[in-house]
């Protein structure tokens, strides 16, 4: 499966949803739970099936103003690809 395109709309896959507590949010999926921190959480919270990959990148590039925008894009793309492989995200 290819990496996400600018127009892709990432979303949690069927049967995957948010859980855990306010302070310790996790994504629950069959037989497991993904503990999230910082950037990971910020990315996944934006994977609502509405925002495009391009929009998510732009929002986060704004947040992390000083970091190389190309690196941000690469890292997030890899992150989403890994989750797609595990069938936690669709795009």
């Amino acid at each position: 499966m290819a990496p996400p395109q600018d127009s892709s709309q990432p979303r949690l896959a069927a049967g995957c949803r948010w859980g855990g507590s306010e302070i310790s949010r996790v994504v629950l999926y069959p037989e497991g739970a993904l503990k999230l921190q910082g950037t990971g959480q910020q990315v996944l919270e934006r994977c609502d099936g509405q925002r495009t990959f391009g929009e998510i990148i732009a929002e986060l590039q704004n947040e992390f103003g000083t970091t190389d925008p190309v690196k941000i894009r690469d890292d997030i793309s890899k992150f989403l690809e890994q989750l797609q492989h595990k069938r936690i995200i669709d795009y």
Partner: protein
Amino acid sequence: MVPNPLALIAEVTHRCPLHCVYCSNPLQLASATSELSTEEWVSIFQQASKLGMLHAHFTGGEPLARQDLTELIASARAAGLYTNLITSGIGLVEPRLQALVAAGLDHIQVSFQDSREGPANWIAGAKAHTHKIELSHAIRRHKVAFTVNLVVHRQNLDHLDEMIAFIEQLNPERVEIAHAQYYGWALKNRAALMPTRAQLERAVEVVTAAEKRLAGRIRIDSVVPDYYAKYPKACMGGWGRRLMLINPAGKVLPCHAAEVIPGLEFENVREKTLAWIWWESASFRRFRGEDWMPEPCRSCDRRAEDFGGCRCQALLLTGDAGATDPACSLAPKHHLVEAAALAANEDLVIAEPAGAPSFVQLQRETAELWQYRTNPE
């Protein structure tokens, strides 16, 4: 540091319409009249959530045999738990599936015994295969995660690639290639279930190829059976570290087989709270930490990784629940597992006759091969 438990295994009944020869339920099954009530389970889910658990796994026997299953799933979901249903699918038609999904079922895992109808029914001891296929189609019409659990062993490993191709057609998100584990009925039937080394090596190749082919579409989870591995499995993620199992009568266990261990008093959720049982009970504390470990585990680099393997397997094979799991190549009693492996590899006869044998024909020709799981009184 004892962590909070992550998962509750809700073994809601031991009743089951099938008689699978690889079943890992205890040989002593809980009677139907001893089962916990709906209200008792509701209280359990609330306690489980407060203890920090994230997942509830509904299993059995066959959980669909519980008339109140929809209510149980709804209350587990209301308590904040992610709900997994582990089922044969027998007893599930579309209206009931719809009700379960509407009640908040997150994930359903349906077992398959083979790709071929005759052998599948022969292994399950019932005509179940066609219904499972129909159910799989129905599941895809609903918003719920779907896993196919394919149970593999000596009698079907030779056509693993055919079985995986068959499962692909059902389009689950996930496939578990579940090598039969030798507890309960599966231990009784071990000689008929244990694969040869050659079968296992071939299986690893087939699974690796399938993983590549299905990457991004279907996720495959598969574990090499511990009898052929160098080191033991980290059973349940360690004794009393990850999960609690509650049996149909309310007995709280660290795993489904633990009752085989003599000298351990298991608590009942009707008498004590889940929290007390997790943190304070002697049974849950029994094999936590490292003080109980014998050598070589006590000074082994892997002890925090596999915890010395499975306590129940140590008991079943060596008579001592505190011994190093004989599946470990470093275990003093490793020869017990080696002997079983040797026997499995000497005898290369596979029971299933060629052609397209019917369920009835297979049963007739293999009456001495194994014992079918019986139902509780």
